[in-house]
Structure formats: structure tokens, C-alpha cells
């Protein structure tokens, strides 16, 4: 019911940016609409005059190797992510995370850019991208720039860029090397909304002696923004994964996250209980993959 008046379908980033900046009233970017359209139609988002649909922009749908990076367009759907062999090879955790979103119907339209820009602390796509130390490409009328993905979040649903002037064009992360692996895992509540009670992704590189040379761990909701567990990562660097290291890592992780109770979803205590479970699963899976 008049949730929006205009639905524009630009064919290029420039056109889209122009559609955004030329708007006289409220305006927003839309991709698959599996977050935004529902919020609008359920009255959880005030009506927007103009929607600018970026899903028809070809350049946003690219997945390619760029030197030692993989480029992933913001308009790539979860369906494309899970069926793309390049990502299967280089971004297993992203494929796993996005493969859990919705059913095939949702995955056919919902995009990775939308998942990130929705800026929930526990978006499955977002969290999995963070473990790959992803950078995000922002497009404005002035041109494009790269920023660490973790930097763009401001709070639940909020980003640091001006949504009326900036588009997320794409993401990039390093190609997978020998002895590297990644994994994603989440725990759901059977009742209520399909957002993870807690999710976690890990990337790691195994060193010459079988130790974890480097790792990156992300999880959510572990604060108002998607979370990178830097302290735990630092602790694990150079350590061989065994039960003692696991216990210590779990402790450090428990200390650096800030978990909350959310009504009808999960208690803080329960989330704390899940942390080590997920940690063990993602690290061990990633080690296994790195050693393949």
C-alpha cells in the first residue's frame, strides 16, 4: 500500500548514483528486496518515495580473479555464490554462510551486497566475508574507493557511508593459498525468526609445523556491529590446535565479545555457551580444509 512511488531500474552504477542523488524525497537502494521490501511492507520501515533497484546492473554481478584477489560484485545473489566454483575454491566460508540463507527462492534474488548493507550484526554473508579480511568497494559520483569491510558498520542496521550517495559496488579478498582454509557455522533457534542466535566464520593458514600460522575469526551478534575477534586471532597465531589451546582461545573469545540477551531469541548465557562450540567447529573444519 504505497510503500513506495517509484521503482527505478538503472543499468549502470553511474545511472544508479544519479537516480539516488536526483531524488527529491526519500530514496533507497534495493537489490533482492528480501530485507528492505519486507520491512517496508510490514511497516517496520517508513515509506520511501523512490527505490533504486541495482539488481539489473551487470557490473555488480561479476565474480572474477583480479591478480591475487577475488572480486565479488555486490549484486551477486546467494544462489550465484553457492554455485560459483571460484568461490567454492577461494571462499568456502562465504559459500557456506550464504547457502544457509532462506530457500532457493530467496537465494535467487537476495544479494551479498544487500546482506552486508543491511548491516545486521549477524548477517550470515557479512560474517563470512569478514573472516576473509574482505575489503569493500564503495562507489560515489566521485569514483570508487576500497575500505576494509569491518569499517563500514556503525550500529545495528547502520553504516558509516551516506546511503543516498554511496553504493556498495563489490568486495575483494585474497585468493586461497596452499594450507589455507575457511569455514562457517551457526546455531538457530527453531522458534521465531530465521536469524542466527550466533554465527561464526574462521579463516586460517597452517604453518610448516602444523600450527595455526594466522587466523581470522568473525562472529555475530557479538555487539552492535559485525564482530572480528582480534584478540582470539592474535592468541591463536603460531599455536598448535589442541584441547588446551582450544580452552584458552574460547576463554579469550568469551572475554572480547559482548553478548546480550534478546527476548524470545536467546539469553546471554546461552550465547556464551555456544561460543566455544562454534569456535571448535569452525576452526577444526578450517584446519581440515587447509590440510586437504
Amino acid at each position: 500500500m504505497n510503500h513506495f512511488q517509484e521503482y527505478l531500474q538503472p543499468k549502470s552504477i553511474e545511472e544508479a548514483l544519479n537516480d539516488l542523488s536526483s531524488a527529491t524525497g526519500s530514496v533507497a537502494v534495493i537489490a533482492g528486496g528480501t530485507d528492505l521490501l519486507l520491512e517496508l511492507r510490514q511497516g517496520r520501515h517508513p515509506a520511501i518515495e523512490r527505490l533504486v533497484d541495482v539488481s539489473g546492473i551487470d557490473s555488480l554481478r561479476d565474480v572474477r580473479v583480479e591478480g591475487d584477489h577475488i572480486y565479488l560484485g555486490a549484486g551477486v545473489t546467494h544462489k550465484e555464490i553457492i554455485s560459483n566454483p571460484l568461490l567454492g575454491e577461494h571462499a568456502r566460508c562465504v559459500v557456506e554462510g550464504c547457502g544457509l540463507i532462506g530457500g532457493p527462492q530467496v537465494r535467487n534474488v537476495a544479494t551479498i551486497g544487500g546482506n552486508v548493507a543491511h548491516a545486521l550484526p549477524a548477517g550470515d554473508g557479512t560474517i563470512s566475508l569478514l573472516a576473509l579480511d574482505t575489503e569493500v568497494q564503495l562507489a560515489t559520483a566521485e569514483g570508487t574507493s576500497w575500505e576494509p569491510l569491518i569499517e563500514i558498520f556503525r550500529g545495528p542496521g547502520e553504516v558509516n557511508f551516506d546511503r543516498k550517495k554511496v553504493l556498495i559496488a563489490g568486495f575483494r579478498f585474497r585468493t586461497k593459498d596452499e594450507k589455507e582454509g575457511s569455514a562457517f557455522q551457526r546455531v538457530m533457534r527453531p522458534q521465531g525468526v530465521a536469524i542466527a542466535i550466533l554465527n561464526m566464520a574462521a579463516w586460517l593458514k597452517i604453518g610448516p609445523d602444523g600450527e595455526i600460522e594466522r587466523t581470522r575469526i568473525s562472529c555475530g551478534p557479538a555487539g552492535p556491529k559485525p564482530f572480528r575477534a582480534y584478540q582470539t586471532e592474535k592468541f591463536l597465531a603460531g599455536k598448535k590446535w589442541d584441547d588446551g589451546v582450544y580452552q584458552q582461545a574460547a576463554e579469550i573469545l568469551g572475554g572480547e565479545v559482548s553478548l546480550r540477551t534478546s527476548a524470545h531469541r536467546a539469553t546471554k548465557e546461552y550465547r556464551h555457551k555456544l561460543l566455544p562450540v562454534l569456535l571448535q567447529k569452525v576452526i577444526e573444519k578450517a584446519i581440515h580444509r587447509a590440510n586437504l
Partner: protein
Amino acid sequence: MKNLTFVVNEKEHTLEINPDEMLSDVLRYRLGLTGTKVSCGEAECGACTVLVDGDPILSCNYPAVKARGKHITTIEGLSEGEELHPLQEAFIKHGAVQCGFCTPGQIVTAAALLNEKPDPTDEDIEYALNDTLCRCGTYPMIINAIHAAADKINQGKLIEYPSFDFGGGHDVVGQVVPRPEAKEKVTGEAIYTDDISFPDMLYGATLRAGVPHGRVKTLDISKARELPGVQAVLTAEDIPGRLNHGLIIQDWPALVGVGQKVRYVGDAIAIVAADTQDIARQALDLIEVDIEPLPAVTDPVDAYKEDAPLVHESGNLLKHIKVNKGDIQKGFQEAEVVFEDTFYTPTYEHAFMEPECSIARVLEDGKVEVYVGSQIPYSDRDQVAEALGVPYHKVRVKGPLVGGGFGGKEDIVGQIHAALLANATGKPVKILYDRHESLLVHPKRHATQITVKLGLKKDGTLTAAQTELYGDTGAYASLGAKVMGRATTHSTGPYVVPNVKIDCYAMYTNNPPAGAFRGFGAFQAAFAIENMMDRVAEALDIDPIELRRKNALREGSITNTGQVLHDSVGLVECIDKTAQAVMKITAGEDPFLSRAVPGEPNKRRAWGFSVTFKNTGLGEGAPDNASAEIEILVDGRVETRISSAEIGQGLVTVLQQITAEELKLPLEQVNIYLSDTDLTPDGGPTTGSRQTYISGNAAKFAAITLRNKILSTLSEKYNLPPDEIILDKGLVHVNGRKLTFAEVRSLMKEEGHEPKLLYEYKSPETTPLGEPGDKHFAYSFAAQAVEVEVDLVTGEVRVVRAVGTTDVGKAINPLGLQGQTEGGLIMGIGHALTEEFIVEDGQVFTDYLSRYRMPSIHHVPDEIQVMIVEDPTSDGPYGGKGVGEISTMPVPPAIVNAIYNACGVRMNRIPVDQDWLAGEIAKEGR
């Protein structure tokens, strides 16, 4: 307005559309392709799935403008002419169609899967259909159907009907037959209420109270009336007839007027009819209403307290229901051990896939016609007529197909409103609820608190049972007194207990009303008593199966209400069959011991057990009758007409089988016409698992009477003894001649006999509680075992296997029985693990489907065994009795019993809260 050109099912269309129109609306309302269903409108359920350039998408959340230049395939585009797509054929033959409302979405999603993976595994199917929901719980049959379709496509294998080791015994009755309406349902031709439209039709919308308790101070509709496109705005003052409606007690105002009270958030204040749905909804925003809030009571136990706010002036107690048998004090004195505990079940939502829709129009002769997918067409007719202040015959209720009911479509929701608006505007008016409104408004399952106290001998013999129940019937009575009555009589389980005392309080509160829901109070009772029985078994160190067996009702037993069970008590056989099947799986090991899961150090598995019983029919003195009209049509087909409703349970199939059986007709020669108060005689409510028995009997005796009439006509005409006239394969053999039924019809007419008759079936008499005699004319029985897997750290629970046996008297329609039983099992898993309708201080928290999670294909156990006991009941058709409800009831207690066996944590409430469970397991230190 934008121009949209796109191709739908190979045909190009160009339309002017609004930017915010969704593809589902364009397909359904502009192109008339109503096979695509909208169930949630919030991208949760998959019902609206269509293919865009071959990929499945949710058309309810897909702006139509996005389809420009694309190729859309809907369910209508899957079949080629008369040739069904293999999936469509397989869905029919495998019984993967019940109410049918989810079916187009399932088939389209499956078609996309088969395009991508021609030979999918079970896991592939589960992954692909993960978010394509079926409230009838048809998933196991859907999985079978998809495999069968794949085999046909890949290997040319014929799609066969499944076979069962129950049923049989007659020509048609007991045989595996397709649903007569299955073909329409798989092709998208099936018509549900919202698929109907009339020229000049208006759209209705309803202003809801939004507060749980309050008094309407002022109400100003003038601005809404002025909005262009608005044709009528009505308030309580505009109701010409009776203000209140209600199934038994008329306490529910169709509209709450100034000075009157709202009693729950969903109470209706005003209704609007407008040229479009958008305008109607905009008009609601322009209505100014001031409701002075009153303190609300939202808990049934609080509602019973002295100083509780009054929901109705008559007090908060809807009914105090009592059962007494023997001498309760003596019973506890004789007991060597006594156990007591209190159990809680939450409110549950039916979440039938088809949201409520009513269309009303005024015919030239002034008669008001209402189209509605209702479980009780005659009661709708009466209540609409009373609200309009017209005689009953001035209203006609016609029931299109019903996309699931489960008890949730027995009450009035939009019927009266649509009729009022149609009367006021002279135009047809459609009122379609979206999922949000459906969740807020219609009656739910009663939340209960049930205290069970049992006295036993040390050998496990029950000597006394005392229970106390509180049921939350919400703001209005609906069927609350009956539902809680059934909770009362089922609260001591299917056991022989010499001394019984039960007190049940059905309480009004300011929560959404509660009414009928599959299991009808007996569901809640089963959770309490069966949970308790396992505790008793453990304390007495008796095998839980043995304890139940020992106390089980048998032929000749006396129930807690003093009824002597004369026949058809298959409980012990159900217990034994289930136990044997479980022991076979565990290879003789004690199924109730906790077992490790290889490779999963944090997980434990164990089985749990429960038994249950459920009355068939209304019982307790309520007259329980149905009339059927039967007629030989001009073309030689025989038509049976009853007002009863097909809500997915398979009634049409059963009636067709019975008619065919008695008249020895091929199935195609029998037409069943339901749910039309002008043309079909009253079949009574579709509730209490009664239709196969009551309407089945009505159809059976109608057919027998017609047969006798045919025989007597022909024997007179040909001067032959009746036993020399043979009905066979759709023909009548007389004197070496073979008459078609069309010829028989002509002959009867010539002889002055109408080829049609009405049979009024009256069920065996029952008596009210407290009076001697039978409370119910039949009971079904069931035993259920489930194996669960519990993650000791995360508290996650999964049902791994389910093995159950139901005594149905006679498996008249095996395919339908399998569907009802598996579907009931899955709903039971949902009630135990995924569902909870949350109301906080009278406000509904679970007001979108995304917050009320019904079980998905993901929750289907790895292995399901459905076993059937056929212990016939003397007065049931071919021995048959009810099956619709019982399959859900034993599942939650079996699950919580299994969880205890696996991890040592007892649960007094459902659904299982994994967060809490993980905490308790940690405390137990296991």
C-alpha cells in the same frame, strides 16, 4: 503507471502496472492465473513460487516491474494440454496433495530442482524445499513424489500408487484411490475463495482495536467516508440484526461500538469497502477512534482470582467442568505411591496455508450469497442471517475449496463483515485477510495449565487420578467450553482409573480467543498425563510401555466418565505393535536408555513413548447428525451432496468411495458436492474427527437407500425378485439386460419415483457429563514412539525416528489416512519443537509468519513408520472412526519423554526451549 511486457507460460502480455504491485498480484488478479497462491505475503512460505527465466522466486515479494522482458512459468504452465507434468502426476498418486494450497508452490519449486538436478537425493530435496512450507505436513509424500517423478523423467518408469498393509477388504472402500480434486490442485485450477472475483467487486478492510481491553469512547468515520474510492464505512450502529455472534454462546460483537468494550487486540471497530484494497486500507488510517484502556487480564489462573478485571460482565469463568468417579479419597488411600506435577502448554496457531477470505454479494432476489472456505457452512449461514436480521433462507453460504483449517475455520471472521458491506453497497465485497491479520484475529489453541495427581499401587496399578485444568479461552467463548470439556475427560489418559476427580476452569482473558484446533483440548491433556506416566514409570522402576499396557483401556473397561467400552478398543494392540517395531529397530536393546552417537561426542539419542485416545464426534449429549442427498444425474453419474467441508482431510475421497462401494460404481461415476447451504443438506461441523463417521454414514445410508429404491423400482417393473437384480461396474443387470444409470434414472422417473432422496443420519445417542450413558460413540487410540537426538551442549533437539500405530476402526482411504497420520505427526513435532504463539500483556508478538515457525521439510524424521490397527466400531461406516486429530496428540509427550531419556532433563512445558534445555543439561552435569 508503467508498461510491463513479459511472457507468462509462453504467452506475451503487456499491462499497465503500478510500481509497487507485486508479481503475485499481477498474475492472480490481472491475468487470472490464480494457481499461484499467496499464503504469507512475507517471503516465508514458498506458496507463491513461480519461475523467472527458470529460477524459482517468491512472487509475493517480487515487484512486477522486475519481470519486464522475462519469461515467467507458473503452475498453469507446467502441464502441456491435458498431459500432466510428471511431478503433477506423482503428487496425485503419492498423496502429496492434501488441502492443496501449498501444492502449486511445492511443484514449481520441485520442477526447478529437477531441472537443475534430474536425480535428486533426499538431501537435495530437503535443501530445495527448505522454505516451501506445507501445514498439512505432507512432506514425506512430497519427497516420495519427487523421486517418482524423477524416475519417470529419467528412466521412463511408470508412476505407481504406493501400497499399504492396511485397508482393503472391499471393492473401493479400503483401496488406494486418488483424491477426486487432486488434479485441479496440482494444475492450479483449484478454486479457493480468493480465486473468485465478480465484476464491480469491492474490497473490504477492518479496523482492529489494537488494545487488549478498553472502552470505545469516540469513533469518527467521517474522514474515511470522504476518501475517494470508499463506498461504505460501517460501525456497530449499522448492524441491522444481532450484534453478537458465536458458535455456542453469542458473546462476540461483530463490531464494537461507542460505549462498548473491546476485549482483545483483534476486536473489530469499523469496516470499510472501497474500490481497491489499497484505498480500503488507507481509509482505515482515517478513522479516528478513542479507546480508553482498561486493566487487562491475560492469564487464565489470574482470571479466576477474586479481584481480576472482568472480561465479560457475567464473570471470567466460562465454565467449570467436573468429572467425578468412585471415591477420590479412598483412591488415594489405597495408593502406595502418589505423584503430582503441573504441566503447561502454550497457545498455538493453526497457520492454515490459506488465509481467511469471504466474499459476499446480494442477488437480485435480495438473497445474500457468501463465499467462504468454512468448516461449518450452516453455522456461518445462520450467524450471517442473524447479523443481517433476515431469515436463514435469505442467506446462502457456498464453500469453495479450503486451504487447511485444523479447527481454525469454524468461527466467524470476515463472513458477517462482507455481508454487511455487500448489503450496504449493493456490490460484491471481498474481505481477504493477510497473514498478519489472520494471526491476530482468529481463535487459537487454548493455552493450559494442567495439574495431575496420580495414586498407584507399587505394581503400577492406578488407583486414583485427580487433575485440575485451567484453559485460556481468550476474549470470547467460541468452542472454549467444549474444548476444555475434552481436555477434562482426556486428562486422565486412556487408562482404567477407578477413582477420579477432575476440575477444569475454562477462563475468559483479554488474549485472542481460543477455540477448536486439531486435538481439541485432548491434545493438551495428553501432554500432561503422558509426561506424568513416564515419571511414574521411572519412580516405580516399571517399563514405561508396561505401565501403560497394564492400565490401558480395553474392551469392557469403564472410562473416567463411567462409559463402558463395548467394542473397538485397539489400544493394547497399538501399544504392542509400536513396541515391537521399536524393539526391531533397536535390535532388542532397551530403547529408553541414552545412547551415544558415533562420531558426535556431544550428542545422545533415546526413544520416548506415549499413548493417547480421542473421541470421534461431538458427543456428551450434543446431537450429532448429518444429512446426505443422493441423486442419479441425467448423465448417469451419481451425486452425493452434503454441506460438510473438505479442508484437506480427504472427505471428498471418502464420500466418493462409499457411494461407489454401495452402488458398485466406478469412482469417476460418482460426484461429490459439498458446502452449499442451498443445495447440500446439513452435514454439521467439520470438527471432532467426525466427518468420516457421521457424513460417511449419511452417505452410506443414502446410497443404500437409493440402491433399495432402484431395486424395488426395477423389481416391480420387471417383476423380478430384487436379489436377481445386480449392480456391477456402473451398470444394473436385469433380466440379461445391462442398464446404465442414466437409463435407470429415466425408468425411475417413468415409474414415478424420484431418482433422488435425502437421508438423515442420526449418530448413536450420547449423554452429557454427570449423566449415565455413553459420552461418545467411538474413540480412536494411538501409541507413538519417537527417537530424538539431543545436543548436550547446545540443547538442540532433532526427531530421528517416529514409529506409531493408530486404531482407526477401518482404513477406508489408505492414502488419505497416511497423509493425515504423517501430517499430524509433523504438526506434533512442530508443537513440540518449533511453534509457540506468543502473547505479551494481550499483545501478539508472533504477528508475522516469520515469528511463528511451523515445521518445514527439515523437521521430517529420517524414518517414519505409520502402522494401523483396524478394530472396527459397530456403528461406524465399515467399522471406521475418526483419524484427523489423534495423530498430533501423542507426539509432544513422546518427544519430551525421549529427551528425558536421552539427557535426564524433565520438561513440564512445550515447546522445547533449547536455551533452557542446554542450561538444565549443564546443571545435571551430564
